[in-house]
């Protein structure tokens, strides 16, 4: 395993590369989930990356600008910026390993990033775990999490902040502190009116894994992708929402299904 900084000096990104380097079967860029989900899943996705490395895949885990070990502060984080970083990470993976077959992997918001990056530059394959398909709804849920946290700690009548007041702050050009993460007005704009979920599969080969309980929420989205040809495979598995808490309980079902799909070529 190798850890390093890459990208422009003004936008230094942190990366961790697993796998046999130039002898790799294929390459994967891991797109991390957003905010606290990146933290709760970090150890587990690192573990899966190391496992894939042992299986002969080159895996680059990277931290978008403003997150993890990369430079910048969280208020610098935007969808546009993270997409650029994802492309930079793909270039870095190709340069460092020379692999020909490359793909994106993403969990939750990372899967949204992976799908968007694949639209811009279609990879050979794409693996999505429980993707966030509606960033507008997702962002609202994040704001509500702060309200929930305050309701837990304070009596309802002492909670001053509302979703509307936070939105007003964004509209007025102010950042909003959401449980220690400083969301910028630019992030708010892009989350609520930015790129939408691709109507067509952005890569020839796609594996889409979601939890059984997400079936109704996703409506016909995955089926639309499957119906539009290509090689889009989708499965609903009885996986735990492992991104919701800190533990080392490993997403075995998602991981093994993905490994089987990758091994099948």
């Amino acid at each position, binding site marked *: 395993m190798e850890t*390093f900084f890459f990208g422009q000096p003004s936008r230094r990104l942190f990366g961790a590369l697993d796998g046999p380097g130039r002898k790799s079967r294929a390459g994967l860029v891991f797109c991390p989930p957003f905010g606290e989900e990146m933290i709760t899943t970090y*150890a587990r996705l690192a573990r899966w990356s190391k496992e894939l490395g042992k299986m002969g895949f080159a895996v680059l885990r990277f931290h978008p600008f403003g*997150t993890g070990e990369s430079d910048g502060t969280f208020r610098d984080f935007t969808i546009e910026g993270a997409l650029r970083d994802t492309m930079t990470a793909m270039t870095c993976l190709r340069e460092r390993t020379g692999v020909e077959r490359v793909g994106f992997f993403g969990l939750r918001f990372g899967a949204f990033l992976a799908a968007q990056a694949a639209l811009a530059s279609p990879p050979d394959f794409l693996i999505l775990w429980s993707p966030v398909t509606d960033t507008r709804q997702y962002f609202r849920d994040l704001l509500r999490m702060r309200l929930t946290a305050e309701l837990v*700690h304070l009596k309802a009548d002492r909670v001053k902040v509302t979703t509307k007041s936070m939105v007003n702050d964004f509209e007025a050009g102010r950042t909003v502190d959401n449980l220690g993460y*400083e969301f910028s007005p630019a992030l708010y704009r892009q989350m609520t009116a930015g790129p939408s979920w691709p109507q067509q599969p952005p890569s020839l080969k796609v594996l889409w894994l979601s939890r059984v309980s997400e079936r109704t929420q996703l409506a016909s989205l995955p089926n639309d992708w499957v119906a539009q040809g290509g090689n889009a495979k989708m499965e609903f598995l009885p996986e735990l929402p492992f991104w919701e*808490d800190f*533990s080392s309980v490993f997403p075995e079902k998602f991981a093994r299904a993905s490994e089987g799909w990758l091994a099948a070529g």
Partner: protein
Amino acid sequence: MAKQVSIPVEGWTLHGMVHEPQPLSGERVGVVLFHENFNSKFGTHRLFRDLGDRLAQGGFYALRYDDRGMCDSPGMCDVTIADRLADARAAVSFFRTQYKLDAVVGWGLCLGSSVAVHISATGSPNEKLEGLILCCLLADPGIVSLPQYGYERVQATKIAQEFFLRGNVLRKLWNAPRSMKSWMRKIGVLARRYLRPTPKELDRMKEVIGSVANLLVRYDGPCLMVFGEKDSYLTDWVERVNPGDKLGLKKKKIPPDWVVIKGGDHTFSSRERTEELFRLTLNWAGPFLEGHLPGQPEAARQGQPQVPVAEAV
């Protein structure tokens, strides 16, 4: 800007990041940041990474690291509590010798603070900690659990209390036959969990956590204890670990300084609380840079009475 370092320990390598002071002033003082159970070295809402930067701005060296086989450290390992302690010792020793430090302070959050207390009890001079900053200290073995072993303790008394004391018992019993299937499933799961033997590692972990309070009593250096006002660990400390200062911390030669951050939760998750935590850390550890130990807590320096250890809530 932090630099990557590799810390060798028992055939493993830990991936670490060192923040160097800019500019260097006074004594060479390092702060080792010990993270919580399954976290990474940058931490929840980047707490550790930001603290590292702030410490460097304040004239300190700061080290953050991932445990063996975890996160950005190479290899894979189901880390045990013994591994964590060995990793922490190696990190402190590495930091002190490689950076020629005059003093090393341990800064921990949750399980990280328990680890710091254990390291403070070490005999080796290179692994010694001259000061401790303990945030949301985990010292109550009763709240230790290990999800990595699929272990969720089932307490029959608690379940009985839940059943008989909450809600309408008669209605529950009346409805029971109709929801028999659900009941059987619940009872089956609970029985299996109740009968499952306790993993040895959980026992070891409880033992390590259970000895934290006594080690803290024996620790003879300066110590700052910080809790979030809304953190349940504060209640655990005050009601179960040290009720009425039964440990006698207030009578120690150097009693721990004690601060409760208003509105703070377990990870101080808002910019305001985080800033307060950083300010406290830098103020308290500041005297180390001038070659002496932290003295009275801030409250006492301002002429206010010190918040008594056991009566803060």
